[in-house]
């Protein structure tokens, strides 16, 4: 049986396009989901994340491969015979039923005895903070409340696994952030696995125990949020999660460190503690996160990059400095708000010198084609 609640083995799915030809949505995906885990599937639209979710819920039949839920092969079972429930993107609440009947739907289908059914509906609504709203119609509720009804409806049958298909995308920013925390708390309370699909990287980083980044039907990286952010395995992941400054070039050893020489004459120094180490002359990409940069004076120690400032944006928490190197390469740096005076003087000069710690530079084996594809 194993400890995994969901196992995908070589899951493959291709769709026929209306204009002819096919598009491969899942490219032989292997995925194990732990019990009681909050796993997020993250990727750009069309990366296959929703198809992957539908393969688990049963709305997509795989061309090849297997889906196991709690050890049972459910590959050939229709959606209504799988022990999973889904929170849909636009909630999909039944407009002709009141909240109580929406939430109690799964129990009514299962023929649960009336008294127990009503009691469980009440409990589920209480869990999502909507106690006593049984008799309202969905259209009489706010977006956030509809979201909670959808959640209560999906958990009432005590599924082994809850699937959430971009459930927060229709909410405004503040409500979305509040719901993110609530969902995380709810998941811990229920003790079941959540698989959460989103294209919002911030949401993914906030909520997940583990994060799977998908592109073109392939899982690019699956790991904890922290690792995916700090140690992306390729340039696609690096540029999809968080803002990134990527420097493609050729590696050369220099003392204990590695130097990446770019085509436009920059030399990026990396300490390469752990992670991948390129050999001499190998193609490599250096990643420096914007927040790794600091504003430094002319006599500073350590490696620096000089830029011409194009724009300084104050976001409240920090300053975003957008600029370019003399050769025209775009650079983004994030400087803490407390360094206001330095930022102001740099802005007045129109130039800034950005320092970074070689230990914070992450090297990617990718030659940058993934990043180029992203831009295209």
């Amino acid at each position, binding site marked *: 049986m194993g400890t995994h609640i969901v196992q995908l083995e070589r899951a493959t799915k291709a769709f026929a396009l*209306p204009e002819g030809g096919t598009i491969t949505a899942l490219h032989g995906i292997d995925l194990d989901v732990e019990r009681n885990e909050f796993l997020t599937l993250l990727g750009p639209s069309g990366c296959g994340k929703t198809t992957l979710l539908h393969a688990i*819920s*049963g*709305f997509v039949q795989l061309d090849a491969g297997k889906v196991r839920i709690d050890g049972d092969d459910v590959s050939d079972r*229709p*959606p*209504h*015979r799988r022990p*999973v*429930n*889904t929170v*849909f*993107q*636009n909630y*999909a*609440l*039944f*407009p*002709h039923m009141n909240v109580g009947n929406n939430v109690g*739907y*799964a129990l*009514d*289908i*299962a023929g649960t005895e009336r008294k127990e059914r009503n009691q469980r509906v009440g409990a589920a609504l209480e869990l999502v903070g909507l106690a006593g709203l049984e008799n309202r*119609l969905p*259209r009489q509720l706010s977006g956030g409340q509809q979201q909670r009804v959808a959640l209560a*409806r*999906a958990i009432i*049958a005590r599924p082994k696994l809850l699937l959430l298909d971009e459930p927060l995308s229709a909410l405004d920013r503040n409500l979305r952030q509040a719901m993110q925390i609530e969902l995380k708390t709810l998941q811990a309370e229920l003790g079941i696995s959540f698989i959460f699909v989103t294209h919002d990287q911030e949401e993914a980083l906030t909520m997940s125990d583990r994060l799977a980044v998908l592109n073109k039907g392939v899982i690019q990286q699956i790991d904890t949020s922290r690792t995916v952010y700090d140690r992306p395995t390729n340039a696609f992941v690096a540029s999809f999660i968080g803002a990134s400054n990527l420097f493609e070039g050729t590696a050369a050893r220099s003392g204990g460190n590695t130097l990446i020489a770019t085509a436009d004459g920059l030399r990026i120094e990396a300490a390469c503690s752990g992670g991948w180490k390129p050999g001499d002359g190998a193609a490599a990409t250096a990643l420096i996160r914007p927040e790794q940069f600091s504003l430094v004076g002319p006599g500073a120690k350590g490696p620096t990059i000089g830029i011409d400032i194009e724009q300084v944006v104050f976001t409240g928490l920090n300053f975003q400095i957008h600029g370019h190197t003399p050769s025209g390469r775009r650079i983004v740096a994030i400087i803490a708000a407390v360094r206001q005076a330095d930022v102001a003087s740099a802005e007045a000069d129109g130039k800034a010198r950005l320092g970074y710690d070689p230990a914070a530079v992450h090297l990617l084996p990718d030659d940058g084609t993934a990043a180029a594809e992203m831009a295209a």
Partner: protein
Amino acid sequence: MSTSTLRGRRRSQLGILLGPASAFLAIFFLCPLLIMLVYSFLEPGLYGGAEWAFYPDNYGRILGFANPEFEDYDPVYISIFLRSLKIALITVAATLLVCYPAAFQISRLPDRWKNFALFLITLPFFASLIVRLFIWVLILKKTGFANMVLAGLHIVSHPLELIYTEGAIIVGMVYVFIPFMFLPVYASVEKLDWSLVRASQDLGANGFQTFWRVIFPLTLPGVVGGSIIVFIPALGNFIVPAVLGGAKVMMLGNLIEQQFLGARNWPFGAALAMLVMAAVLAILFFYIRFEARRGDDAPVLR
């Protein structure tokens, strides 16, 4: 600008927009209707026309309290009414049976084919109703196409009595009213949100449960709307029974026409028409009550 003049302007705009339609309906619908209502309580003249005297026995002849001095209560009128009701209800049921599944099929076609299918549904409107009905005469008559095929296949030895029967009327009615049923049914099937169907399956409902609990209730407004739009004209229809029912099978429409044009008994014809209208209004009343209970997302007749 002050709010009162703004309101005044709105009112005058409303008047301009609704005025022509209201005036038209008042002159050409309400007035004749009132005249008919008055007529239905007048005494029929000996040689046609009407005498100015209150005379409720027009209704009595139909409903059973006739004045035996002049007329007898004749149950034939009630039986014609019941037959018309039966034919109209069968027409509604049959058109629904044809249109409901078809609406699902067509709503799932690619756009190009969808528009073509809708065009085909409305195609009969381009040809005269009388012409289309006489084609059915050619098909159903004793030496017609249907009997030819049946005889040719040796299914029957003698030609069947197909035309001038209730069955012929029903076939004609279904044929005439299919587009009227299809369009409202299709409108509600088309806007059905299929993510609700997926939600239902996800929550454990099989196909039948999903249909009964989600698909049918959500498409019910179209079904009810289409049924009413078919039922009302079917009840009073007189062209179809005139052509396909001949003199053998009479419906309310033919009866009323006969009273006005043949028997020249306008008051009695008016009384019959008023009773049909009363029945239709009663049905509409229940429909509106039903719609009000459904709440504000329910469509009006469409």
